[in-house]
């Protein structure tokens, strides 16, 4: 077969990249080799259009134990001899085509990134975006994705403790499925994804290899079109039972001390794991592809190199210790096969039936080595002119605020996600303290240490769309605020950067400015970016999705006793709003979903104001002067208050504290940097003293169930809870709820 630029283009490489490959090799690659470059230089593996900007993020400092991007996931010091390992990753493209397997394998893949480093996963989160929930296609995608996440996570045995879901038209064709895993590792038991030591055996462990997922990395590096469904084999198939055994076997092998390095096989399978491990160790590998356990006959060399069959790991162990690994994998009834050895020549040499099928310098394939890095042009998107032109005075303040609130609480972005999360095992592992005691971030016992972790994912992408710089800052700030309101100290960030096509200068503008905002906010909150994932090409012929730089953040609690919860505790407790109120309805659910305004600026946000607020909340929690804390986010102050009342069937009687602010902004506006707290009557003086100098206002008191706003009776909290809890389930069951959600 003659290899030409046409072949390269069919494999989604550009003509320039083909020339570069020929130059680097000093010859024309054969088909196997070209496939290897196609996968390794795909956007998904090489970060070729993002790496220059990613390097501007704060990628070290704090409690970081490995630099960003160095290993499969971020690793931070928890103290007392334990580390936390965490990462978020997208599985958007597979989930768009096959939602069940796409989401399931997303969960499986992110957990492997955690336990390949020697950590036991203790918590999962996921951040999901879909189109309008009234549409059958969205309901199909939501059902499939939720089923897939549950199927994999429930069997694998790691609790799904948190996450977020938004529904916006722009995600109709391109849903986003971002999965995060958090694990705990004992100091001294971490494993690096590095190959070292001439002659050390390279061992393949885990499920046998099939033809599934071939080309998945390059599939994820293109727009989704009508033809995409014909790429079905590019979607992988997951087996959580195999992965559960793989987890236990790997965590049993590591303490034996024989493992030199280990990496999971995710995108681009064997070629990626061999290339990255070799390049990092400055070595090469000689691999016999016929020794790879297969589940299909007559697989070709390029298929074996690229297959993304799930639940597989590549291990380099000390020579002569193969038997130690074999014995443990036999115990768990998992395939284990020595497929080659480490060499000193820096070359990856793949043989099959004694024939050399491909020979490539490992370094040339990888990010940070020979993979290309591009500067992309960007220009301000034209729609931003419309955003800036919005004038709130054009929106009349509604007379019946209660009717607005009743619609608001049933908007799927705001309503309870109970229909979704009851399908996830959220309690396995007996570490999730937020089941019985809810908090803004999920607080999970970091067993076997005595500490706890607060974990959250956040991104309101409408804010990012309205103002990429400020919107990305808000995503970081909200994540940190959720952790602070739960009693934690924000430690670090993992990000999942979901954008449209990077070759579109207006999309790239969103990317660049979001990275700048994220970097500035992470520096302010001292939360370095430990790693993550970029997902471009979330785009279809109708256009790109909202720029969605999802933030996964981990915070530390020295003891679970330090935890703060979000629910009102007792009738008579005094309710305060900490932070300043603004006459701001910009980019709120109220403005967009109820008033139908698509373009408006991001809501008010000032990073110094936010930072000061978080310090005040931390101080109030440490000095034990508050009984609950819940931040104001989507839906505004009213939704925050009503959510706080649900857990104990309480209510509230409150009055607006600033008559100068329009009422819709006061109750439903989404200006940032506000937290609702409650204070026991006998602690009012102590609370006000603790917060002296800060901006806060007394809103009212907790009642035994009745809800009253500005002297008006708004009924009982239980009837609000029924609307909140059942809105999504009713919609999916096909009953229009009493306030005609379908009209929204």
């Amino acid at each position, binding site marked *: 077969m003659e290899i030409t630029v046409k072949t390269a283009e069919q494999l989604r490489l550009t003509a320039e990249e083909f020339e570069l490959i020929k130059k680097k090799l000093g010859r024309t690659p054969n088909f196997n080799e070209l496939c290897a470059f196609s996968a390794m230089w795909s956007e998904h593996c090489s970060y070729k259009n993002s790496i220059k900007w990613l390097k501007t993020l704060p990628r070290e400092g704090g409690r970081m134990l490995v630099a960003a991007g160095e290993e499969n996931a971020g690793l931070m010091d928890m103290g007392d001899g334990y580390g936390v390992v965490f990462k978020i990753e997208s599985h958007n493209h597979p989930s768009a085509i096959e939602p069940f397997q796409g989401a399931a394998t997303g969960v499986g893949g992110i957990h492997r990134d955690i336990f390949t480093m020697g950590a036991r996963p203790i918590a999962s989160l996921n951040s999901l975006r879909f189109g309008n929930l009234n549409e059958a296609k969205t309901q199909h995608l939501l059902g499939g994705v939720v*089923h897939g996440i*549950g*199927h994999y996570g*429930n*069997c*694998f*045995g790691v609790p799904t403790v948190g996450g977020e879901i938004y529904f916006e038209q722009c995600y109709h064709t391109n849903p986003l499925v971002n999965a995060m895993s958090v694990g705990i590792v004992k100091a001294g038991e971490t494993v690096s994804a590095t190959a070292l030591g001439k002659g050390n055996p390279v061992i393949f462990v885990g499920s046998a290899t099939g033809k599934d997922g071939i080309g998945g990395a390059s599939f994820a590096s293109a727009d989704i079109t009508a033809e995409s469904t014909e790429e079905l084999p590019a979607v992988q198939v997951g*087996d*959580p*039972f*195999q992965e*559960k*055994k793989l987890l236990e076997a790997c965590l049993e092998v590591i303490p034996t001390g024989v493992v030199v390095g280990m990496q999971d096989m995710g995108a681009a399978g064997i070629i990626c794991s061999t290339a990255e491990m070799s390049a990092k160790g400055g070595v090469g590998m000689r691999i016999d592809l016929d020794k790879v356990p297969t589940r299909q006959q007559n697989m070709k060399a390029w298929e074996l190199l690229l297959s993304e069959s799930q639940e597989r790991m590549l291990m380099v162990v000390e020579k002569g210790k193969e038997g130690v690994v074999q014995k443990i994998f036999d*115990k*768990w*009834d998992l395939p284990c096969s020595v497929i080659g050895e480490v060499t000193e020549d820096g070359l990856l040499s793949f043989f099959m039936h004694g024939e050399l099928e491909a020979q490539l310098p490992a370094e040339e394939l990888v990010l940070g080595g020979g993979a290309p890095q591009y500067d992309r042009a960007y220009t301000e998107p034209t729609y931003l002119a419309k955003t800036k032109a919005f004038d709130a005075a054009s929106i009349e303040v509604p007379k019946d605020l209660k009717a607005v609130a009743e619609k608001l609480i049933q908007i799927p972005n705001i309503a309870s996600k109970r229909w979704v*999360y*009851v*399908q*996830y*095992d*959220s*309690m*396995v*592992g*007996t570490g*999730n*303290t937020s*089941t*019985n*005691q809810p908090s803004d971030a999920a607080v999970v*016992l970091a*067993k076997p240490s005595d500490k706890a972790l607060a974990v959250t994912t956040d991104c309101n992408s409408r804010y990012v769309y309205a103002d990429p710089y400020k919107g990305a800052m808000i995503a970081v700030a909200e994540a940190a605020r959720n952790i602070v309101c739960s009693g934690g100290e924000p430690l670090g960030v993992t990000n999942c950067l979901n954008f449209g096509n990077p070759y579109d200068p207006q999309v790239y503008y969103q990317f660049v400015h979001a990275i700048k905002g994220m970097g500035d906010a992470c520096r302010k909150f001292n939360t370095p970016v430990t790693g993550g994932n970029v997902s471009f090409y979330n785009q279809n012929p109708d256009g790109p999705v909202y720029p969605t730089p999802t933030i996964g953040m981990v915070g530390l609690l020295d003891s*679970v006793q330090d935890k703060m919860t979000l629910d009102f505790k007792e009738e008579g407790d005094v309710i305060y709003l900490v932070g300043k109120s603004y006459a701001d309805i910009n980019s709120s659910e109220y403005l967009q979903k109820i008033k139908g305004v698509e373009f408006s600026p991001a809501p008010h946000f000032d990073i110094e104001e936010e930072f000061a607020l978080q310090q005040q909340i931390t101080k109030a929690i440490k000095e034990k002067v508050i009984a609950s804390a819940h931040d104001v986010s989507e839906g505004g102050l009213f939704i925050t208050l009503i959510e706080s009342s649900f857990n104990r069937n309480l209510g509230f009687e409150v009055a607006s504290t600033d008559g100068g602010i329009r009422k819709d902004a006061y109750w439903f506006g989404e200006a940032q940097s506000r937290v609702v707290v409650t204070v026991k009557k006998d602690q009012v003086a102590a609370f006000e003293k603790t917060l002296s100098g800060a901006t806060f206002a007394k809103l009212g008191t907790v009642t035994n169930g009745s809800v009253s706003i500005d002297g008006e009776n708004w009924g009982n909290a239980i009837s609000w809870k029924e609307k909140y809890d059942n809105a999504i389930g009713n919609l999916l069951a096909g009953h229009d709820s009493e306030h005609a959600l379908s009209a929204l």
Partner: protein
Amino acid sequence: MKFGVVVFPGSNCDRDMQEALQNDLNQEVVMLWHKDKDISSFTTNDCIVLPGGFSYGDYMRCGAIARFSPMMQSVIEFANKGGKVLGVCNGFQVLCEAQLLPGVLLRNANQQFICKNVYLKGVGSDKALKIPIAHGEGRYFADQKTLEELEKNNQVIYHYCDENGNITAEANPNGTTNNIAGIRNAAGNVFGMMPHPERASSDALGNIDGQIILKTLLMS
């Protein structure tokens, strides 16, 4: 007395059960590997627990493969000699497949996995106990004669109920027959239940109702 917790491939509540028994109830616990058979150190004063999870992946009927494991042959003998055996969730399914308990567990009526706190009425407490469930196949079913015998002999150890202890249709989370959440055998030494008492036995999780269940069934 001591406890054995069986580890099948795919068990994922084994460590949770171990921790609840060791840390919350101060009991001695031995983990038992599914490929082993030797439980000669256990006397009929001891107790063996089959934990929750997805034994062997549960790709056939839940528990259908686990019942054939070497360890289960020993557990069946142990139960038949009068030793106490508790199966929780997947463990309950295994006990039904092994015919140590009557009936079967079918897919939940809504065809979905369900994980949430529910309330149970039964042995050990006059008030409703708050305990989590987490299963896709928890709808207990048996023929009419068996059901009548279970009720007549007080073999239904837990019914799903509401917060106030009323056994109502609304409080039935999965469509299970007669709100049955857990049963025992006629001899009174083998117990199976879908809810997870080990997930509700520590102060750190804000719920210790599960301790009442574990103590009542296994230590009294």
